[in-house]
């Protein structure tokens, strides 16, 4: 059977929204390659007339912008936190999917209800706790606490429910330790869910603003997002630097997106992945 194509008009309509989502981003990226005079001309053009790397050079030359450190910190935080997230969310998902124990329903309810306590709303006491625990102004504060995500646990639980119990039982009869069962049966079988948690976690941590804001003080420990926010001051905004650094900050996301596009779409579709 031949598949019918959508009408020409539908295609036009679809392409209209493609431009709607794409052009604003492209305009900013192109602006990052414009010279100072072009950035502030009376009627801006979409494309740069003379492409220049001045704005990017500015990020390197001016010691006020610790661009290199910020990028490095962002990578450290995003990668480390993702590793932690994968390990602990898989463990919790396993416990909730494959064990019956006292309080299991309550724990599941607690996990789901933490979704209703958004970090943004309770950031004041969280900032106190971070200080009390001695995590203030360390990258640990950006790595460990955000790694526990209710959505990650829930996704893993739902996924592991589909693994047959017999697999685990027979390993147990063979005398395998619980940790060994986890490592050699659960983890290999959970790979698709692990991939989903990993790429979402990487995106969330890379784009995080609120955790760094309440936990970090020294500019040398800023993440890229926090660095960006300090560049846009209340009265003066260093647009030349901002456009360049914003463009840089989108590159890792673009790479991750191009590679894992399918996982992102499936992750959202299946669980509504939510930080």
């Amino acid at each position, binding site marked *: 059977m031949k598949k019918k194509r959508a009408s020409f008009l539908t295609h036009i309509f679809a392409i209209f929204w493609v431009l709607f989502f794409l052009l604003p*981003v492209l305009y900013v990226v192109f602006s990052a390659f414009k010279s100072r005079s072009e950035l502030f001309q009376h009627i801006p053009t979409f494309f740069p007339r003379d492409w220049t790397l001045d704005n990017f050079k500015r990020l390197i030359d001016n010691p006020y912008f610790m661009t290199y450190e910020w990028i490095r910190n962002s990578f450290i935080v995003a990668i480390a936190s993702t590793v932690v997230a994968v390990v602990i969310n898989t463990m919790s998902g396993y416990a909730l999917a494959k064990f019956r124990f006292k309080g299991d329903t309550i724990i599941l309810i607690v996990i789901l209800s933490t979704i209703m306590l958004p970090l943004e709303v309770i950031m004041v006491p969280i900032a106190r706790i971070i200080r009390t625990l001695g995590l203030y102004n360390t990258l640990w504060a950006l790595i460990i606490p955000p790694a526990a995500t209710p959505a990650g646990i829930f996704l893993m639980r739902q996924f592991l429910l589909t693994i047959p119990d017999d697999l685990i039982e027979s390993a147990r009869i063979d005398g395998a330790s619980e940790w060994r069962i986890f490592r050699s049966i659960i983890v290999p079988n959970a790979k698709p869910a692990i991939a989903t948690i990993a790429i979402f976690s990487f995106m969330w941590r890379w784009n995080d603003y609120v955790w760094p804001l309440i936990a970090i003080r020294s500019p040398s420990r800023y993440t890229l997002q926090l660095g960006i926010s300090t560049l846009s001051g209340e009265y003066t905004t260093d647009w030349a630097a901002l456009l360049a650094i914003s463009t840089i900050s989108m590159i890792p996301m673009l790479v991750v997106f191009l590679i894992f596009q399918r996982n992102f779409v499936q992750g959202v579709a299946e669980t*509504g992945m939510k930080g």
Partner: protein
Amino acid sequence: MAKKEQSFKSYIFRQKAVPYVFLSPNMLIFGLFIITPAIMGVYFSFTNFRGLGDQPQWIGMQNYVNLFTDPDLFGAILNTIYLVAVTLPIVFFFSLLLAIILVQPLRGRPIIRATYYWPVMISFLVVGLIWRWILRDSMGYFNGLLDTLGIGRIETLLNPRFAWWSVVFVFTWSRAGYYMVMFMAALLSIPSQLYEAAEIDGANRWQRFLHVTYPSLRPARLMIFILAGMEIFKIYPLVESFTRGGPNYATEFAVRYIYETAFSYRQIGLASAMSVVMIAIVMIFTLGNLALAKRRGAI
């Protein structure tokens, strides 16, 4: 014999401990960074705590009284509620529209889907900057465009009303792709027999949408409604880089106000009271929607 029994007992004990051990890292983090702060927040809200080196003093309901009598404080909460009331339906129907476009047999569908989704990958902070750069007063691309078209420049982000609606627009731009994907999954799971039956009954496009598609989306609709609503309630980094709450507090929403109150003005007690009220509002919103759906038999 006795020894064997004992080791069996300890085996049972260990078996019972296993799930708790597996759960412990997560539970520790939740306990320390979500549950404890929530309880602390409730306590702070009854004190005049001003942060570092200060002893919190119990002042009873004073913060809450201030919250509900001071028009500025309450204004930020009301403004947030308005924002949710306006933005939620727009995001909801726009993402549904995009999902409907994408389930059509389009040429190059994967690329189209990817571009619709792409803004979701950009941080709220950068999204705010992107649109500030475009809508920036007098010299932005938007005003340049109006000028070229002969419409003449307008006051953009310096106009309170324009700024407020821009927040609605920018939020929608940045998050529609996300909810679109959830709608798509739901649309694709509707059995095609339902459409065939409707077609045989002579239902036109619109009738099919109204009587087949829309009702079938019920569970997805509920989830999207709640998730998107919660996301708008806690809007913050986006406005921080886009409008900074201005002009004249027009885009001052609850979370930004809580942050400013706590960290710039050091009124942690008052900020905590606002947090408690916001949590209560989010809970009423979420549980209320769930309860309503349950009564209608949707879940």
